[in-house]
């Protein structure tokens, strides 16, 4: 099955990439963009077929490698 992981910066962590994108959007004439945050989107192809087990496993991966708790949050979607 597939796991989708969204890694985002924690509130309070300055996001230079997001800021740069917002800047560029404004420069391109897109207004009405109040805030931009950029994160990571990781897709895993898993051999596991049990979604509960898969989720637990991916949770572990996020903790051990895929996210850095000092600056990032993550969320997981299994399908």
């Amino acid at each position, binding site marked *: 099955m597939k796991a989708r992981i969204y890694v985002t910066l924690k509130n309070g962590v300055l996001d230079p990439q997001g800021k740069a994108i917002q800047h560029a959007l404004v420069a391109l004439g897109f207004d009405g963009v109040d805030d931009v945050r950029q994160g990571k989107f990781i897709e895993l192809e898993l051999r596991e077929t049990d979604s509960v087990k898969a989720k637990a496993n991916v949770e572990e991966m996020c903790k*051990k490698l895929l996210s850095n708790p000092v600056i990032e949050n993550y969320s997981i979607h299994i399908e």
Partner: protein
Amino acid sequence: MKSAVLMFPASNCDRDMVVALTKITGTKPEIIWHNDSTIPDVDLIALPGGFSFGDYLRAGAMAARSPAVKAVIEHANRGGKLIGICNGFQVLTETGLLPGALMRNASLKFICKDALLKVENNQTSFTNAYAKDQLITVPAAHHDGNYFADEKVLGQLEDNDQVIFRYVDDQGRATDTANLNGSRHNIAGIMNRQGNVLGMMPHPERHIEDVQGGTDGLAFFESIINSLNS
């Protein structure tokens, strides 16, 4: 002084570090490969600069989980001296040996430039050969050197004099323009509470001969030797 340099796939300042340590200590450091689970008994371990594992995912993230780093953490926990330069600093924050994280430079661009640093604390194993508040020039070259920590951690670092190097202007002021990469508090290098682990973004090992444009990096290594001899 016995030393060792830890090499990851795509470390690329390992040779520079070996040359510097050899020149200063008179003995060639041992090389530790990232897959080694036992490491030699040495006085100092250096984590060199580079792009370990391509800096993919996050700079230093994959390297921080390699078998050799487990052993390095034990070395540090025993009080062994440990330095991380550039990518090595990123690895050290990823292991948690040093607090905070190193994010993409505020300019979002790689920056290669001589950095002017102020030695904030010279009462350490890594800076005793410098004068307090001495301004030194050390080359910087990185994409992810923007030091981040939350207010609480920053407060602790400042209170305990763990901020060792700061980006400053030629008057020694930690201004925004002098801040190479957007680091919180202009931080260029920090030390752990116990004083045996140091991480910094600029490269002292690149400034050890006049022809390289300066020799301000020498005292960094000399400090470590002093601290072992005292």
